């Protein structure tokens, strides 16, 4: 489906910005897509935006299309929630938290 592809493209674009190890990208993207669908995030509004990387996504985020921008922001928030809620993914992104080792 076009909107599902667009969702995957946007997720990939956000993850691209964090410089994650190659091996982490696929499982993390899968987890994010699941969370995004659970939240009811579709990206029909982004289907025609042609997002193929962070710079494309940044243009949408800074652009005048409010619906596309809102969708892109929701997907960005979803990626961050998945990524930074998990000690495992935090380690992958190089953001170990000082409390992780205490907890």
């Amino acid at each position, binding site marked *: 489906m076009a909107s599902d592809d667009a969702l995957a493209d946007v997720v990939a674009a956000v993850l691209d910005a964090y410089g994650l190890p190659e091996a982490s990208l696929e499982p993390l993207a899968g987890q994010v897509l699941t969370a995004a669908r659970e939240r009811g995030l579709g990206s029909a509004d982004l289907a025609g935006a042609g997002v193929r990387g962070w710079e494309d996504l940044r243009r949408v985020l800074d652009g005048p299309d409010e619906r596309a921008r809102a969708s892109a922001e929701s997907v960005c928030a979803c990626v961050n929630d998945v990524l930074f809620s998990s000690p495992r993914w*935090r380690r992958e992104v190089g953001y170990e938290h000082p409390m992780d080792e205490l907890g």
Partner: protein
Amino acid sequence: MSTRWTSSADAVVVGFGLTGAPVLERLLGASGAGDVAVLDRGAFWEPEGHAFPGERSLILDRPLTVDPREDHVLLRTPGAGPARLRKWWASRLAGGGSWLWYGQLSRFRPSDLRMRSAYGGALGPEVRDWPIDFAELDRAYAHIQGRLRPFGCAYGHTEAAYRDFDGGPYLERPGPSHLERLMVDRLGRDGLNAYVGQSCLGGRAWDTCPVSPVTGRPAERGRPMLARPNWYVDLYGTLREDPRVRLLGGCYVSRVLVDGGAVQGVEYLQRDDAGDLRTRRIRCGTVVLAPGALETNRILLSSDLPDRNGLLGRRFTFTLERTAYLVTAEPRERDLADRLAGLYGNVVIKDFYDLGETGPLRKGGKFALYDAYIAESPARHVRNLRMRGPELARFLRAERGHYVVKVSFKGESLPSAGKFVSLSARRNAFGARVPTVTYTPHPADLLLQERVTAILPRIGRALGAVETRVHPVPSGEDLVSAHHHGGAVFGDDAAQAVLDRDCECFEARGLFVADSSFMPTSGATNSSLTAMANAHRVAGVVAARLS
């Protein structure tokens, strides 16, 4: 048609949270309350593996007993249609659907109660003095702080001055940390009166805070609250064993029943075993509302009150909010005291408005400064930063090596004709009309935000920040606060206030309000301690009445 009562009680307390707890403690410590029903939206349950009801609710992303999709509040701001008011915390203390929980405990000042006297009518007719003396509040502060025993560290003050500012007693915690000492010293050199403040329950954002604030030992997973001294845990245990108390969870209070100027009882909805909503009514001559200002306003507006002066829902305010993140050049220490201070401590600048500034409004608010990297759970921290992509990645790398200070401002938000709660035509899942908060900033709110815009960079310079990111003045859907006040304010004159000085409703004797709805003005700091202190004061009146 005569009312069909399903049960009766001497008194009903609505809400077992911040303010319901002090009410119940005092009520049951006196004679006369032989049968007290406690209604809460949450469930008084013991989930498997958890020792305290509602404990799971302190973890974000777990469902509330009352689903937010079933019950919400609308926000209407200038130039924008109604949108859902965002919850600051999706957390509960003891089973409820609370909009806030206390983290930082800060006392009001005597001047906070005398805005009308200080400024005359210049700030508008809605701004009025409190009808009580500060000394009455002061006594109640001492009682509540004695119960809560917040964690403190008097660095930046003499012990006596510290108690005068934020009260006592408090539990001495390790510290000051390296960062706290550094901040207090540098801000002091710049003429800003800073000190290490008090906080409670531990972990302003690490809802599952994994370490004890005193010992630094990791808490047992899944039982974060039991790792700390917690008055609520003890009180709940006492109430559960008390034969005079009925704890009723999962109750959605729809209205207070009033007849002939006196309260007759409470109507609420509860799901039966099949999941169907059932209407129940408790007959009683005394009702204490303590579910939080938003809920109290909804309940009062839905009740049988004549509202002869059109005051219900009026003079509702949020505390003004503002945030900045400062990236310092100071390398991050890795010792335990530093981490604990990040969780439990905060450096406070409370009286910036007394620094010789001039202008029509000399009151202000309170800045709390803390180590955002530690204090905020990572996912929330990233949300709060409001950055994305490479910019976010760069920022996160920087703060791993250097201190990043979050500056959180809480300021006085003045009541005005443009701030009120009303009921919309929309109905929620319980069939109740959805409340709408209309919020048009008072001109003085905007003036204060202008000052804050100037002060935040000053704080950044004082701390030697290499980067200062000041978030814009919140507007529209971002105009949200955990501190809700007013809507049923107290006063001496029935033509000007919903409640009398004892917080008993002028139009319904026997109906008391014990949460922050009573506040005529919001004060210039966090308000939860003041709301709890007043609840203790009001409960004394209720207890005497029942006796």
